């Protein structure tokens, strides 16, 4: 269940949905709960339902989004650096390019999902529910580990 609204005044459209157990899933919430005849301005159309949580929680959620945004940018720049700077002395440089591309794709996915993560957390805060579990940390850890191992193997094999 997602975007549950007890009052008729708000609509919700979020990328992540939160169920009663606090689990999240990717999707689109029901925004049919806007009061009939009430047109929201387009920049306010995605306002979340519920009541404003404690300011500290709102700030903390915002900081977390910004941290993910910086991580996404870091991944993209690291990907560019890996694919351009790590050039072997001889032979093909497909390895660094693939590793760089993986990091850049990771950055793109982080940028996309971090917004959904923020919306899901804010929705849970506003509805007084437990925060949804975010898959992003595990995702980042796995991709980073795979790229690191691949880069190490590539370095060893290309120099040996």
């Amino acid at each position: 269940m997602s975007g549950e609204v007890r009052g008729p005044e708000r609509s919700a459209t979020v990328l992540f949905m939160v169920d009663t157990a606090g689990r999240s899933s990717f999707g689109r919430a029901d925004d049919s709960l806007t009061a009939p005849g009430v047109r929201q301005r387009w920049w306010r159309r995605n306002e979340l339902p519920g009541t404003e949580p404690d300011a500290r929680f709102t700030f903390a959620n915002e900081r977390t989004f910004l941290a993910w945004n910086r991580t996404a940018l870091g991944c993209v720049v690291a990907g560019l650096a890996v694919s351009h700077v790590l050039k072997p002395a001889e032979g093909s440089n497909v390895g660094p390019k693939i590793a760089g591309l993986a990091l850049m794709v990771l950055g793109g996915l982080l940028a996309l999902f971090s917004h959904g993560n923020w919306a899901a957390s804010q929705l849970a805060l506003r509805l007084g529910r437990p925060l949804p579990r975010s898959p992003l940390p595990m995702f980042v850890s796995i991709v980073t580990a795979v790229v690191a191992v691949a880069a190490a193997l590539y370095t060893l094999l290309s120099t040996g």
Partner: protein
Amino acid sequence: MSASDRDVIDSLALERNGLAWQRTAMSWAAAGCAVTRYFARGGLFTIRASIGYLMLAMGAMIWAEGARRYHRQAKVIRAGQPITAPAFVIRSVGYATTLVVVAIITIELRRW
């Protein structure tokens, strides 16, 4: 907890948020410099180089928005009003980041 304690806690949280916005702006600016350096090898006025300029502009906008929000929300805290989440700004930053990353990946793939 008294109202003044509450103000102090919220103000400190707001300050951390202001710093987080500034760090994000600096990250955008640094990433924009790096991307411009990589992509502007064929000339400064190319479509590829414009991605870097766009990122630099994003850094400037994020810095301005962070500063604006900091001062505006400080007034809201002093007035004892509830803090609202910046849904539109966060959505814009999230989508802009995704678009920029997709553009960079597309340019990289075309260079292969």
